[in-house]
């Protein structure tokens, strides 16, 4: 009998020791990441039949159980993956937002400063000082655009580096999980769960979820881990590697690749993963930032730079510089970037230009060839711009671009990446640092001589691209016929109106009607194209008022340098709606650019904040199951300590019973 009491007391002591062990383990790991609170599981030991009833056999410590909830942990991992993506994306987007900086300074101010500087030039056209000031504003603009380009490059490099680091960590964790799968299988064979290894494996999955969104399937052989569209990272004891490689379609960017089974003797061909295969986590966030914020923003700013250069150059070409020569280019900017896909098997070389560089598109495109059809896809919006059965030859603009396969041919499956404006920031530069190169003067000067007796006036005249002014044209008004004569033979005079009237000047006797009541806007163009030498082309003047008979108007080349008409015209480009399909000015486009980046950053901030709150909530829920509460442990400590004392008392009692029995014989 007392033997049984000894045994029962002993089992109680054992159980209390397990309890104290587990409690100390819990207390010591109270702040260990990934630790799951443990409890001893007690069961009543089986009884023994006696005539007086079943005699209890004390307590058994069945196992030490982890308070682990698969459901809550999976939820937490998913939430962590989303949060990881958002926080990475937000961190990068807010860096970009910092790059843009104050909306009241920076590139927009530089553009405005350049244009207002041109008004100063127009006020003082022959002053080298004001020209130099305008040129300095241009230099500032170029520097700011270049530095923006550098910062975009840095952000892209930073994305590439982070991808490399993240992919290396992913490989480490997946290999860890595979190893743990093996160890856990071996350790579990003895019948008790290896709690410490299980904690480690769950912690590895949680860390992996920070880096990339994964789904975990638990089966008899352990955890199987899959990414996006089903590529396995871990299956039982095997892990599969991810890698990074230069993107096939854009050499400036790294793509994530799937490299197959780690340690395979014959590695399978590298598979490029699309961004849809990599959602969530740092990797997902980086890829999303790059494709949805970084690339479009750089293209958008590049479009502004491209349009600015094209507009200013075009207007400068319509003027006369301080040296009296036709205006040349003031700015240079690179043409669209074209990448031939590394996987191309054809020999085609593609060159791409703008149909109208003043209205560049800011989207990116891909030209593909399959099934005898060339397809141009807008990769920013994902829509097909156009298809053709014949190879593009640079004659018909499509999507605002002139595509031309200059040599070779495309094979089926070949593709080209076209980035029309993304390279503009790095290539934007001043073409000419000479202050006299600003073509401030207009090339034409129309006027009335002082001997006119009527009240008619003529505007000073404007020119359009491809203009040519040959000598002085003197127009004479004949009151009896109401006509002007004296236009150069070989030109065609167009009188504005609806519809416009065109009169080819076939001989010196050809006249053009003029009505004093309506006035007339006249455009003189060469009748034949291209314009032959010595024929006036592209000159417009407006005549208003009532001329007297015999009054004359002269249209002559301008030789004066104190003329700022073209500088003024150039400064007015600031309000020229050329971008976004002819609806936005440069400033409005820059405002839209700032707005886009600001929106991206502030939306991500909000999303990130709410996702962080969600993670906190789920963490609390998960920790309420699996976390260590020290008060609870203190109470457990007391409980097990007392259990230990009580069981000791049981043994002491058994002993004293035995002593009492022994005392009978003395």
């Amino acid at each position, binding site marked *: 009998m007392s033997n049984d009491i000894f045994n029962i007391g002993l089992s109680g002591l054992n159980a209390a020791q397990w309890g104290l062990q587990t409690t100390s383990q819990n207390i010591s790991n109270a702040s260990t990441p990934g630790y799951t609170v443990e409890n001893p599981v007690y069961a009543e030991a089986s009884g023994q039949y006696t005539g007086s009833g079943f005699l209890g056999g004390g307590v058994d410590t069945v196992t030490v159980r982890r308070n682990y909830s698969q459901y809550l942990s999976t939820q937490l991992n998913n939430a962590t993956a989303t949060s990881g993506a958002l926080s990475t994306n937000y961190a990068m987007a807010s860096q970009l937002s910092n790059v843009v900086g104050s909306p009241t300074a920076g590139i927009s101010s530089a553009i405005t400063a350049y244009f207002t500087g041109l008004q100063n030039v127009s006020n*003082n056209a022959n002053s080298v000082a004001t020209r130099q000031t305008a040129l300095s504003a241009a230099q500032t603009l170029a520097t700011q655009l270049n530095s923006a380009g550098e910062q975009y490059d840095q952000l892209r490099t930073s994305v590439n580096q982070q991808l490399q680091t993240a992919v290396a960590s992913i490989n480490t964790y997946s290999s860890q999980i595979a190893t743990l799968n093996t160890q856990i299988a071996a350790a579990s064979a003895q019948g008790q769960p290896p709690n410490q290894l299980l904690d480690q494996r769950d912690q590895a999955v949680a860390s992996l979820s920070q880096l990339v969104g994964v789904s975990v399937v638990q089966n008899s052989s352990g955890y199987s881990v899959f990414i996006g569209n089903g590529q396995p990272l871990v299956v039982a004891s095997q892990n599969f590697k991810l890698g990074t490689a230069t993107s096939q379609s854009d050499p400036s960017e790294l793509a994530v690749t799937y490299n197959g089974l780690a340690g395979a003797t014959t590695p399978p061909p590298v598979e490029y993963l699309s961004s849809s295969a990599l959602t969530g986590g740092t990797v997902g966030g980086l890829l999303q930032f790059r494709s949805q914020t970084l690339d479009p923003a750089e293209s958008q700013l590049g479009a502004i730079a491209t349009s600015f250069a094209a507009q200013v150059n075009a207007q400068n070409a319509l003027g006369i510089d301080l040296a009296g020569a036709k205006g040349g280019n003031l700015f240079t900017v690179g043409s669209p970037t074209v990448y031939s896909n590394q996987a191309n098997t054809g020999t085609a070389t593609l060159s791409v230009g703008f149909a109208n560089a003043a209205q560049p598109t800011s989207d990116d495109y891909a030209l593909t060839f399959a099934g005898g059809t060339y397809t141009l896809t807008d990769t920013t919006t994902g829509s097909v711009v156009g298809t053709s059965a014949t190879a593009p030859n640079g004659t018909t603009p499509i999507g605002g671009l002139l595509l031309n396969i200059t040599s070779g041919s495309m094979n089926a499956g070949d593709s080209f990446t076209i980035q029309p404006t993304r390279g503009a920031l790095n290539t934007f530069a001043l073409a000419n640092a000479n202050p006299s190169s600003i073509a401030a*003067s207009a090339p034409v000067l129309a*006027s009335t001589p002082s001997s006119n007796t009527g009240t008619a006036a003529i505007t000073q005249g404007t020119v359009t691209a491809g203009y040519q002014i040959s000598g002085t044209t003197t127009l004479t008004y004949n009151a009896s016929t109401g006509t002007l004569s004296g236009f150069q033979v070989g030109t065609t005079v167009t009188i504005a109106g609806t519809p416009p009237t065109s009169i080819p000047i076939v001989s010196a006797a050809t006249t053009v009607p003029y009505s004093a009541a309506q006035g007339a806007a006249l455009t003189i163009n060469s009748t034949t194209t291209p314009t032959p030498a010595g024929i006036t082309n592209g000159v417009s003047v407006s005549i208003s008022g009532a001329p007297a008979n015999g009054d004359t108007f002269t249209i002559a080349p301008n030789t004066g340098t104190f003329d700022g008409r073209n500088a003024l015209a150039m400064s007015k480009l600031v309000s020229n709606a050329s971008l976004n399909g002819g609806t936005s000015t440069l400033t409005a486009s*820059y405002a839209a650019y*700032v707005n886009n980046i600001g929106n991206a950053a502030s939306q991500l901030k909000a999303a990130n904040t709410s996702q962080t709150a969600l993670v906190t909530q789920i963490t609390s829920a998960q920790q309420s199951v699996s976390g260590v509460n020290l008060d609870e442990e203190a109470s457990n400590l007391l409980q097990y300590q007392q259990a230990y004392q009580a069981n000791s008392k049981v043994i002491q009692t058994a002993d004293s019973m035995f002593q009492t029995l022994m005392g009978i014989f003395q």
Partner: protein
Amino acid sequence: MRISTSQFYNQNIQTMDSQESQLATYYQQLSSGTALTTPADNPLAAAQAVQLTMVSATYTQYTTNQNSALTSLQLEDKTLSSVTSTMQSISSEIVRAGDGSLNDSDRASIAKTIQGYRDQLMTLANTSDGAGNYLFSGFQATTQPFTSATGGGVNYHGDNGIREAQVADTRQIATNDSGSSVFLSVPSVGTSPVSAGNATNTGTGLIGRASITNPAVATNGDSYTITFGGTAAAPTYTVTDNTAVPATTTAATAFSASTPIALGTGMQVSITSTPSPGDTFSVTPATASQNSSLFSTIDSVIAALQQPASNNPAATATLSNALTTGLSAFQNSLTNVTVVQASVGGREQELQALQTTTQTNSVQTQSDLANLTGVDMVSAISNFQLTQNALQAAQESFVKIQGMSLFQYIGG
């Protein structure tokens, strides 16, 4: 709910972290005075700020343009005032030269005086601004606009270029007038036709100023020649309209000094004293090229005054006619300068009015911009205070709660 002790610590730290970062943001706003440092702070306001900054810079530029235009116009105005006063001096000299009691040497000295004034006018016409640009040479700012021509008059080397400054969104204002429009032309309205006698006339006929009897008649702008015929005792005259195509000539009409000669149907002119047969007179429009150049007019007057005329009735008549011609043409030129000066004054007034408007707009834009980007101090300070209090409360309660552990009460 069961609380995990480490999660409890973590969560408190997180809360205090976010409150501290909020506090830092408010502090930065308060110390910098800017609420909008990056577009992420307020994307919509950032986009508006870009536009407003441009508008604000544009107004600043308009102010610069207005000042620059005003400077140019004020210089031109001042120069034209000097031109007018010099011309008035010349005018009175010409009137004085018409005094019959003067002898040849008196007139020669008057010619000298006028020559002096002419040189002054020439200097004024070749005025340049502070940067060395000639005021009246159009776009040819570095070319001296006027040089004296041999045989009287001037050569104009400038052009008709008019510089315009952008002084408001839709307003460009001319900041100069070409030399030819100031000194070499006269307006067709507000001026009178110029009468002249041929210098080779042998009679003593004196032509007066043409008077307009009917301003609506189109032929008032034609140029006429009056030719005398008949005999010395009974002179007749014919009037030829040289502008009509072909030229028309009236039938010979008997001349009477007391009857004005009709020029077309809307104009008449008186010829007094005794013209000889063969003598010719002319009446030409003010805008005719021989009448419109100020310098040519002055040079002809000087040349006429230098011709000896004492005791020679024909020469005296020729002098008198030349002075009549000169005075009319000169008055026309004076009218022209006055008209140009009035236009300059008008532009100056417009600029001054625009300066006020631009100033108001500029202030408005600045204040809009400040509203968008600036910190609302009151709300920023109160937010700062609020967050600070919340943080303090969080810290104090954290200290209290973390002290509550069962371990403190057991053992001992």
